């Protein structure tokens, strides 16, 4: 499965698609990037006079790449026409640096385990200078069944 085919399988569309490109993927790890559009409406309110990317969106970037792209890749041999359903079930993230409008971030995610439909990953988000923005663990269920 190519990196482009994984992106086509993602169950997201704008304004909630937070993966632009995958740089690398194998059974154990994935690297992907995303650029935050400076025109995103959330910057008008977070914060009122000081636009900073909300931590929940940084977490979402890491989850869409680390959990969902990697999950689709791990299930690649059993996927049919449908897209697997995903549910984030736990996160533990520490935050170190702010991300400002227009910045590009890179997710580095490594599989801890994938058993019984649950994928647990350790994740790190880096900025263009290679500094750690945030990181921790994200867990989710990847359910390879048609929507009911």
């Amino acid at each position, binding site marked *: 499965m190519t990196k482009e085919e994984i992106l086509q399988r993602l169950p997201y569309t704008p304004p909630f698609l937070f993966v632009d490109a995958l740089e690398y993927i194998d059974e154990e790890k994935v690297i992907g990037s995303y650029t935050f559009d400076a025109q995103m409406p959330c910057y008008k309110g977070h914060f009122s006079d000081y636009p900073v990317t909300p931590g929940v969106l940084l977490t979402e970037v890491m989850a869409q790449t680390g959990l969902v792209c990697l999950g689709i890749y791990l299930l690649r041999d059993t996927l049919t026409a449908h897209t697997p359903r995903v549910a984030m*079930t736990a996160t533990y993230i520490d935050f170190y640096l702010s991300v400002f409008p227009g910045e590009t971030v890179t997710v580095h995610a490594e599989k801890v*385990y994938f*058993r019984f439909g*649950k994928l647990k990953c350790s994740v790190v988000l880096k900025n263009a200078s290679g500094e750690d923005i945030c990181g921790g663990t994200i*867990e*989710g269920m990847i359910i390879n069944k048609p929507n009911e």
Partner: protein
Amino acid sequence: MDKETFIAQLREIVRPYAKNQEALEQISASTDFIQDLKINSANLVDVVLDVEEKYDIVIQNEEMERMLNVQAAMDIVTSKLKEK
């Protein structure tokens, strides 16, 4: 391994994941992990992984699907330990 020993060991495995700690203290063979202990299905995976590690066994997908209460966990672990 007798039933009381297994239940006592299982209680410690389940403790970090059980949302209902009162029900955990009353744990018995009929305790249901999801209904009684309020463990979510994602954390049930961690319970099963911790059971595998504790007893040095490998649990299959169809066994995992049946492992919804203490009795089922005991049956599966007991039969796995006999195979060793």
